[in-house]
């Protein structure tokens, strides 16, 4: 009876804990600052897709179709998405963990190479039984990567060498060193045409999990998310690291040895990157090949930024980027958009996340426009329509340039027309900016656009282009909007004067 009571108590204890955990999670999700972060990330993604679609327009691709196939590709091949995400989770965690301690580990790539090299050597030089062998490889890979991060950590803590410089330099060192080790002059070359090691023993490989490429490394990566979350939030070490990262003076005042914490954080960060490299070698490549990584370490930085340096955010960001890569393949095969477009999107996402003021500016001005719409619909709706027209002008200008490419002969007249369209496109962006921020002198930009469209139309006629009509229509349209702006402005002023009288 006593025993059953005890187990009941235990159960309720565990139940209580799970309940607390869920409550804590719910509280975190509904927290305004968390929600703001989420909106920011989401808006950044949308903006990045918009800007990327402009680039695709210039290059002559159909962005709508491209995005449809990007989405189809991502959702139809979830195994590929997770496969691409697997190493990104770890390198993202690596950068995020260092950042929690106030450090920028730019050298995840190098730590990844050193880790993967160590794991490969363990995998083909030493024979061990199954289960033990992969674990040993992962451990040695993590240790090697960890040491590669620990050194810059020590230099930072005790010699003040800035970690951005040292980790980046050590990155190049690592890539070149491992490249030499497997080259025809190096000790670990397999004798083939390719600079690589002999294949790993079968006992060292990570078994596949689902589909073609996804391997059990994913499980490890997800365990790592839990582990890093636990480390940061539940341990004394994590507490001290965060304290050092947020306020080194207060940490020192509180008796925390910031040097020790900096070195350890860099070591752990390197270890996670090393683990990422080992996983890839053992799960995908089966051997170490020189320059094998497609920039997984560098991408870790972007993953950490998008994930706001929180372990769960990193997991989500890594899966998102995995989706981009998996969908990018489909987009490339079906629509013909180069696979590099994915990197462009990725870069733009990080740009917008890192520059929250852009999104703040958009949201704040949008709010004021819609708010003042209720009181007095004339002026704000002119602003709104003109802003949208600005974006339309940008799109059309870019589209016109691509239509000029397709002409049979490209004369100097056409070149001049293209130049005018470039100006028009730039003007489109400016129109959006001045109307969205409700600048009083915005009308002049609209008038200038009307003039430019007219010039473009004339040039089209001279150069026998096909879009003269479109240009003239737009010239008229912009002119009318400018007129309306002026006219309504005048009317409002007189109306106000009447009111006062």
């Amino acid at each position, binding site marked *: 009876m006593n025993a059953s009571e005890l187990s009941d108590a235990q159960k309720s204890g565990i139940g209580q804990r799970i309940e607390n955990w869920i409550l804590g999670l719910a509280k975190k999700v509904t927290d305004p600052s968390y929600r703001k972060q989420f909106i920011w990330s989401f808006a950044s993604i949308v903006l990045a897709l918009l800007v990327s679609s402009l680039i695709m327009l210039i290059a002559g691709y159909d962005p709508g179709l491209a995005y449809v196939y990007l989405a189809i590709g991502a959702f139809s091949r979830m195994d590929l998405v997770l496969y691409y995400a697997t190493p990104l989770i770890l390198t993202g965690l690596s950068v995020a963990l260092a950042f929690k301690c106030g450090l920028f580990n730019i050298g995840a790539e190098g730590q990844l190479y050193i880790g993967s090299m160590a794991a490969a050597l363990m995998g083909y030089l030493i024979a061990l039984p199954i289960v033990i062998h992969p674990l040993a490889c992962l451990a040695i890979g993590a240790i090697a990567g960890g040491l590669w991060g620990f050194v810059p950590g020590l230099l930072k803590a005790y010699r003040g060498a800035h970690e951005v410089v040292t980790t980046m330099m050590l990155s190049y060192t690592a890539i070149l060193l491992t490249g030499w080790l497997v080259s025809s002059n190096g000790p670990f070359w397999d004798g083939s045409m390719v600079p690589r090691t002999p294949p790993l023993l079968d006992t060292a490989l990570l078994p596949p999990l689902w589909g073609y490429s996804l391997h059990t490394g994913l499980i490890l990566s997800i365990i790592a998310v839990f582990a890093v979350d636990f480390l940061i939030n539940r341990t*004394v070490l994590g507490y001290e690291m965060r304290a050092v990262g947020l306020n080194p*003076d*207060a940490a020192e005042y509180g*008796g925390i040895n910031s040097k020790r914490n900096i070195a350890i954080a860099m070591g752990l960060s390197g270890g996670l990157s090393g683990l990422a490299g080992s996983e890839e070698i053992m799960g995908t490549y089966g051997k170490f090949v020189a320059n094998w990584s497609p920039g997984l370490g560098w991408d870790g930085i972007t993953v950490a930024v998008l994930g706001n340096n929180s372990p769960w955010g990193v997991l989500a960001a890594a899966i998102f980027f995995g989706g981009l890569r998996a969908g990018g393949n489909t987009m490339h095969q079906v629509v013909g958009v180069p696979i590099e477009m994915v990197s462009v999107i990725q870069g733009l996402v990080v740009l917008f996340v890192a520059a929250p003021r852009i999104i703040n500016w958009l949201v704040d001005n949008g709010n004021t426009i819609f708010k003042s719409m209720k009181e007095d619909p004339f002026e704000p709706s002119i602003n709104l329509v003109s802003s949208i027209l600005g974006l339309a002008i940008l799109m059309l200008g870019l589209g016109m340039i691509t239509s000029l490419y397709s002409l049979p002969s490209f004369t100097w007249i056409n070149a001049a027309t293209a130049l005018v369209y470039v100006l028009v496109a730039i003007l489109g962006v400016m129109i959006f900016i001045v109307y969205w921020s409700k600048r009083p002198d915005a009308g002049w930009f609209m008038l200038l656009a009307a003039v430019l469209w007219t010039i473009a139309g004339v040039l089209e006629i001279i150069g026998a282009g096909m879009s003269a009509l479109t240009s003239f229509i737009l010239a008229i349209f912009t002119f009318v909007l400018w007129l309306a702006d002026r006219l309504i402005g005048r009317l409002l002023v007189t109306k106000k004067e009447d009111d006062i009288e």
Partner: protein
Amino acid sequence: MSSQYAVEMINIHKTFPGGVYANQGVTLKVKRGEVHGLLGENGAGKTTLMNILYGLLNRDKGEIIINGEHVEFESPTDAISKGIGMVHQHFKLIPPLTVVENVVLGSEPIFGRTFGRGIIGKIMRALMPIDIKMAVEKIIQIAEENGLHIDPYAKVQDLSVGLQQRIEIIKTLYRKADILILDEPTSVLTPQEVDELFETLKEFRKAGKTIILITHKLRETMALCDRITVLRDGKLIGTVERDNTSPEDLAQMMVGRPVVFMVDKGISSPGDVVLKVQDLHVKDYRGLESVKGISFEVKAGEIFGVAGVEGNGQTELVEAITGLRKPTDGVIIIDEVDVTSKSPRFVREVGMSHIPEDRQKMGLILAFTIKENLILGRHYRPPFANGPKNMLLNLDRINEISDDLVSKFSIKTSSSDAFAETLSGGNQQKVVVARELAVAPKLIVAAQPTRGLDVGATEFIRNTLIKMRNAGSAILLVSAELDEVRNLSDRIGVIYDGKIVAIRGPDATPEELGLLMAGHVQGVD
């Protein structure tokens, strides 16, 4: 210009993101040519109101009328063009630049014509050389007219705090301000410098300038202001004439209840020596010796006050005792343990607690929750840590103990999970004090423990310190506020230029201590 008021702010509302009301329907009317005191505790909304007037913040509702004219300020530039100048509590100066460079910053006089306000003018203004000579002449003229003597070519970093404030005032005059806002101008000055400042302000009043003085010090308000507006919790309590009120009335308006100024601390019964400092020498961060051979003792159950103008070695003295800075020479002994050049953790383990002078920079991690801040310094050992080798945080115990401290020290917050940066200054300091005093320390090093705090929080913290003294802690109190040192201390050491120049009893007069703080040692002894 028909209005008799220079500034009218009518029914001003301001809410900060997160729903904090800074101003709720505040109306402030300042007559032309008067010194108007804006009085209130910290967090009452004084600075917010003035930042709205100066164009630094937008208001949610309300009207601003300057000299009878309705105005809309989008930035301080607009306010400056209407003749408003503001001297901030924390000076906005660039130390390596000269006085004249700092004064002209943002409105540099250039050779030749002005090129208009358009984009071309902007570019030309950025490219043309600065007419420094003209600026210098103008500054000298301003200085002579107002008795604000200063060397225009001196570098700001070589000047005293009082002179730096003078530069800020010249800056506003250079921009032709006739409405001056001064935010807590005396908090960094010596008593003598305060007197000088008051003389200057009285001159300004004679010259017809309007002055708004933000302060929470009653003595200043009564000495200088013609009329006084009191704010509490973002609301207007009232505007009174100086001649129709008293410090007690004002204090009651500020706090909402009667306040006792003198702390009744009882007689101390000193025990054994807890802190012993012998011939201590410490260098500051620039490598200059700023503590030049200090020796003193603090006994259990005694408050030893260190009075002095800031920058005379107090900071380095405190850092050396608490383990944050290694002394170059000398011995520090706490409770018979030699702690010279030991780590902060070692010194804390011996039984030292430290209330640092800058709570935001050192005492707290603002991005941490209150809970996390309450365990800083003891987070690594039970009851806050558990598990193998005390590696894990014991969240349950942390919750219990921090909730207990929050209620015991009446820290005003929605929950102990709130971030420290959401607290007001007084409550932030309460978090620091709660954490440091919760362990019954043998030695408390309290540096500027009530700086920038309102009357209520100051009272609370002073009483807490006295309670700790009566319970047998040794307390080293370092403060720039003479009243505080005199009120609390059982013995007072005056620090000047890195040395303790005199040790006096608590009955020493402020005049005597003021002279000692200014370095006039011979005259007194």
